[in-house]
């Protein structure tokens, strides 16, 4: 395992992620690169290639205790993905290896998400890696039902699954307006089912589930932008809750 570094090609057409793990410093560094690219008006397309793995970063986040620094950090993470998403540059993520947590969110925020055979997407709750915008982007791609299924079955998604789910190698329409359920019968039934299933299986013992379910529930009612903020609140809640417990 090694900390990632970035190699920007001379013509600015690609960024290579070298190494295997993002931490906070690498995130900051990456943000600077994107900021600089955005300031150069001539760039049309940029491809980002490598591991989108942020296990170290997630550990860092979840060990934060100061409320203010936590806010700053959460804003930073979501701001980076938003910058990519709102940029005039067309970004392509070429995932080659592992996608986890906030770094996976960077990938999902790109205009095109591609992946090499063998790529693994990690959504397991124990590493708390799916939070921080990933859920919002998944809801946009998959809809609330499939997102619920994906996040709650707790398994790693291999290349084939991700292809089937159209998380990768398909054209994600960023202008797609989330198909709001407006509380149809299916929406109500889905949440009744998932809530009771999770509740009966894990009792009240796992706050992560409360957070995931709540983020998906609330985000399906509110807009995408609001969803990001809701997700941030729940991640914060989760971290504060964990700290309180320990």
């Amino acid at each position, binding site marked *: 395992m090694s900390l990632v570094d970035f190699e920007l090609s001379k013509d600015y057409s690609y960024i290579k992620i070298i190494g295997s793990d993002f931490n906070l410093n690498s995130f900051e560094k990456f943000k600077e690169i994107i900021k600089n690219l955005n300031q150069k008006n001539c760039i049309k397309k940029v491809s980002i290639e490598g591991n989108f793995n942020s296990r170290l970063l997630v550990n860092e986040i979840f060990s934060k205790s100061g*409320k203010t620094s936590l806010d700053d950090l959460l804003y930073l993470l979501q701001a980076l993905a938003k910058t990519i998403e709102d940029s005039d540059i067309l970004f392509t993520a070429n995932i080659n290896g592992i996608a986890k947590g906030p770094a996976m969110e960077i990938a999902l925020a790109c205009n095109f998400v591609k992946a090499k055979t063998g790529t693994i997407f990690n959504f397991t709750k124990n590493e708390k890696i799916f939070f921080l915008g990933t859920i919002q982007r998944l809801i946009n791609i998959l809809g609330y039902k499939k997102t619920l299924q994906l996040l709650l079955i707790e398994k790693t998604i291999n290349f084939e699954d991700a292809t089937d789910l159209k998380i990768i190698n398909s054209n994600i329409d960023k202008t797609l307006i989330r198909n709001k359920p407006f509380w149809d019968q299916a929406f109500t039934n889905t949440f009744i089912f998932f809530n009771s299933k999770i509740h009966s299986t894990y009792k009240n013992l796992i706050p992560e589930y409360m957070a995931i379910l709540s983020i998906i529930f609330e985000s399906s*009612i509110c807009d995408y932008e*609001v969803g990001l903020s809701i997700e941030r609140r*729940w991640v914060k809640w989760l971290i504060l809750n964990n700290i309180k417990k320990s």
Partner: protein
Amino acid sequence: MPEAYIYDAIRTPRGKGKISGSLHEISPVKLASKTLKKLKERNNLNTKLLDDVVLGCVHPINEQGSDIARISVLDADYDQSVPGTQVDRFCASGLEACNIAAAQIMSGQSDLTIGGGIESMSRVPMGSVGGAWMTDPTVAFKTYFVPQGISADLLATKYNYSRDDVDLYAVNSQKKASNAWEKKYFSKSIIDIYDQNGDLMLNYDELIRKETTMQSLASLNPSFQKIGKETGLNEVALMKYPESKKINHVHHAGNSSGIVDGAAAVLIGNKEIGIKLGIKPRAKIKAFSSIGTEPTIMLTGPEHASNKVFQRTKMHPNDIDLFEVNEAFAAVVLRYIDALKVSEDKVNVNGGAIAMGHPLGATGSMLLGTLLDELERRNLSTGLITLCVGAGMGTATIIERV
């Protein structure tokens, strides 16, 4: 007959009823339950003693649906023995909820109740609840249905309120509301709203535009002119009021009630329960009434509901020290002042919904609290709250300090 005493009244600040509004990220049930929790905390309430919680809500569907009163009771960790019921009298739902809660005390069937209301207009938008009045042609034709904005303009037309008249009223509403906030007149009742992490979401009515002037309002286009003209709604209104010939569209975003999110709760009980709980009554609910009037002009209910309650109590408008007349639209209040011949300086002395917003199901109970606070501040005795109500109704309540 037992008296119904008001022991406490609280409200949330009002957040803009938009995606960008500060209360948009909190669900209606949480907003209502936070209000209930605060009421319990402030009064050191043993909730086992509560007989009922009645909450007004005008769009009781989706996340506001399925008896939000009872669900809020449970979410607020009240004793499970406390029931809850949701009521809908359109814009007066919050006041009606307090009236029903008071009626339970007056009839001797309850000792302690809560009346209040909730509306998250940013999350459950106006109109989303549907309903036959607007949609069923057999009903809409027969009753000459038009939406309230057209009714407000019809009201202004019928009683000759010019654009300047309604704008001046609105400028004053903004001034009075800003002044009240600056001088902390609302602080007794306002509860700050925090999220699940204890982060502050909102602690003031965020719709207020202190800087509003006649000039700034003059630039706003009438809100209901286009739909009135293009969809035939003006013609429908004029079929009912042929003498008006043409509708003068004077209402716009600056002189109509704002769309906001908010909740309120009022603790009501008989004398004995106050003694038992060690809390002091602040006022009593003396009398109330609701009434139906002509539904196309729709918004003249307040004068008729007030007259009805005056008749019952053998009172006169002069007996009232302060009035809260919901500022659904500026013309509604102007008409009320003219119809009842009351002095303008007794009406909405701290502004109203034009400046601070009208969270439909909650407003009536908010106004009750606002009025009580102001009666206490000025050391006056008697006040009347009234609201115009959809489909031509009106509701009025008289309170008296004890």
